[in-house]
């Protein structure tokens, strides 16, 4: 477990020393979200209706945006070879990379999204629901995106390919994440949605580290 925390701390330290990578992602999230009212029109009923879907889609794209460098930097400078040789499981290393990715992109999105939700005219309960679903759902996005990043490591056009691989697999998370807020708006309880989002995150947690490690081993061969 010390290896795990050490790897997470290392990735966080790398981000801390070059914060531009993360702020660009967050800026993309804000700008992409703000474009929707400009494109659709400032009618507040319509905006409140589509807010959940827009914010969730924007969060999905933003978390994909930073993923193509997730393993690529380690692949280029040889860190990945050391991780492959290290006497502790590569699955844990992959999981640590995803955890670090979630802390630097997923978590800020959770904090940022409710403020953008205010601009879309969401009420207080919907804002809470938005933050709650993003909190439970974004780890899945980091895990699935991490898998796509591991699979496309060293490929041509890896950025576009990564999105093509990850987006269809993220559909369930998107549906239940945005659906929860709609259920909330209809005055119903959204705990079912939250539970399913949690289940999706656990399934991703149980399956993707193995696949990521398998993909990374091939990349290291």
């Amino acid at each position, binding site marked *: 477990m010390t290896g795990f925390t050490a790897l997470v701390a290392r990735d966080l330290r790398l981000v801390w020393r070059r914060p531009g990578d993360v702020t660009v992602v967050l800026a993309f999230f804000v700008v992409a979200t703000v474009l929707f009212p400009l494109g659709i029109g400032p009618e507040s009923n319509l905006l409140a209706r589509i807010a959940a879907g827009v914010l969730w889609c924007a969060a999905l794209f933003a978390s994909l945006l930073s993923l193509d460098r997730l393993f690529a930097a380690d692949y280029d400078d040889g860190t990945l070879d050391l991780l492959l040789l290290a006497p502790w499981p590569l699955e844990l290393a992959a999981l640590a990379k995803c955890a670090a990715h979630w802390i630097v992109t997923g978590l800020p999105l959770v904090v940022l999204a409710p403020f953008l939700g205010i601009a879309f005219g969401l009420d207080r309960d919907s804002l809470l629901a938005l933050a709650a679903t993003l909190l439970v759902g974004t780890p899945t996005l980091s895990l699935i995106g991490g898998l796509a990043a591991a699979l496309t490591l060293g490929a041509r056009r890896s950025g576009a*390919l990564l999105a093509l691989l990850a987006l269809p697999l993220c559909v369930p998370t998107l549906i239940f994440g945005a659906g929860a807020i709609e259920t909330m708006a209809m005055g119903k309880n959204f705990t079912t949605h939250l539970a399913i989002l949690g289940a999706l995150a656990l399934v991703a947690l149980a399956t993707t580290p193995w696949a990521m490690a398998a993909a990374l081993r091939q990349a290291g*061969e």
Partner: protein
Amino acid sequence: MADLHFLANPARFRRFSQRVMPSLSFATGLALLVGLYFALVQSPPDYQQGETVRIMFVHVPSAWLSMAGYALLAVLGASLLVWRHPLAALVARAAAPVGACFALVCLITGSLWGRPMWGTYWVWDARLTSMLLLFFLYLGHIALSRAYDDPDRGDRAAAILALIGAINLPIIKFSVDWWNTLHQPASVMKLGGPSIHPAILTPLLWMAGSFLLLFILLVLVRTETEIDRRRLEIADQSA
């Protein structure tokens, strides 16, 4: 298992496939002729759908085969990763575009059928949406397997993707069903009814059988091409 090992040698597989190819092509052509005769001439128009029911004889077998094709990709992916079966990669590379084509045929015929029956080319029906997502998964598989300079890496990355996709397909299907009932509960279209009349079922089964033969034939031809391509590449490198 013994048969799988027998076919693991690409040269032996090539001899085997060249031996079965003539009779398989003949059987495919014959089954297609019989199936099309039943589907276009012999079967009566449906009392509700009219003549458009005939689209279903292409649409439904395509849907079945595109789903079976993804299952095949997952099985091939497992045998590539577990046993390093040398032929599995070649067959997967050959089968993925065929399966994607069947998914596309299913989507196109479905929307052509939907225009007269539902009055629109596309509705966000749960089944349509999950077929579209299956098509995207195929595209990802095809793109990933061809994205590397070293074809072996592409094959193995695509094999992992096929396995993860096979785990996720039921989840995607379930979530799309849920999403659809949440958004438009009243407009769920139902096809066919409780049971299918034999006059419709016979051509459907004939068409399904002939499409299955066509699928196998196309995959065999494409696998032979892949073997030839690998040989040329190896010859090119050693020259």
